[in-house]
């Protein structure tokens, strides 16, 4: 399986853009409780009286917090559903190769110094950043790196996630 010239031509182009609803304190609290269960999460993520005394000056979200769960401003509830944990070149009008299966093999997260806070609106921009081929346990595989950059309403960089998918 190889990347076609049409696939290579879409590397770097915006495949998908999403905009979150404003993040709420409740979103952050519930995320932290779910991750740390059965222990209590750090008070920075749920106790406003405590958080205001820290260097952050208020509650911030855990780095891995996802503000795009359930519903977003863009796409809206009524727009066609796009799977957030997979992708297809069809989103850019290009025919993908035929494959039996697609597996997520690697995730790389990078974070800027700015944390997500209540009230923030986060914009996600997804691009294909790389194609490469390698022989694996399942034979010759085509790997695709998807880059997902998050910025807040002030255009401050929050996070970039690079997800590597293998198709065979």
């Amino acid at each position: 399986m190889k990347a076609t010239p049409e696939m290579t031509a879409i590397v770097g182009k915006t495949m998908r853009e999403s905009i979150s609803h404003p993040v709420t304190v409740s979103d952050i609290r519930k995320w932290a409780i779910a991750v740390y269960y059965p222990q209590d999460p750090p008070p920075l993520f749920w106790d406003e009286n405590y958080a205001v005394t820290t260097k952050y000056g208020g509650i911030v979200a855990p780095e891995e917090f996802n503000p795009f769960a359930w519903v977003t401003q863009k796409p809206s509830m009524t727009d066609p559903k796009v799977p957030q944990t997979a992708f297809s070149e069809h989103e850019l009008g290009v025919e993908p190769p035929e494959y039996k299966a697609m597996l997520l093999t690697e995730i790389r997260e990078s974070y800027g110094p700015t944390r997500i806070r209540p009230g923030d609106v986060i914009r996600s921009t997804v691009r294909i950043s790389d194609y490469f081929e390698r022989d694996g346990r399942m034979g010759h595989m085509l790997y695709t790196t998807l880059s997902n950059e998050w910025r807040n309403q002030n255009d401050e960089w929050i996070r970039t996630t690079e997800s590597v998918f293998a198709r065979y």
Partner: protein
Amino acid sequence: MAEPKRRMDPYDRIGFRSVLTPEGVCMGTSIKVSVGDKLPLFVRDGTVEHWNRFAAVNDEFAAHHWDPEVAKEEGFPAPFCMAPLQLAFFHAMLRDWTGEDGRIVSVAAKLKGPFFKGQTLTGLACITEINVINGEKHVNLELSQTDETNRTIATGTAQVALSDD
């Protein structure tokens, strides 16, 4: 009388050869770090009670995470944990260590195999490099998650910036 079984140090299991420094790893306003230091273990049981909570906040309801029949149909012996929650465990382990003095710069993970319901995940981390960048101490770490049978679930790397007090 048979000698009681001793539980092997998880750090020995995965081949970290480092020795904890005398001052060890401590939380607080000034974290002392040395190459070779090992972070406190991060342990979680694989329970549907936990995964349901994460499913609720991440809108992640694939049936193979909670339905044994679906997991079996897909070739797995039991339901298994969501990858984003496993990644979140690496983050929580780092935060447990640094407290509020740390800033996670990066976390990368390769998923080696599922973390199944009923198993116990142990997260491990060892400091591999320390650099000072713009007045911050940047600490590189090697990460791993194993189950109670020594099977590697995930491996990875991370970088954490610490305030240089």
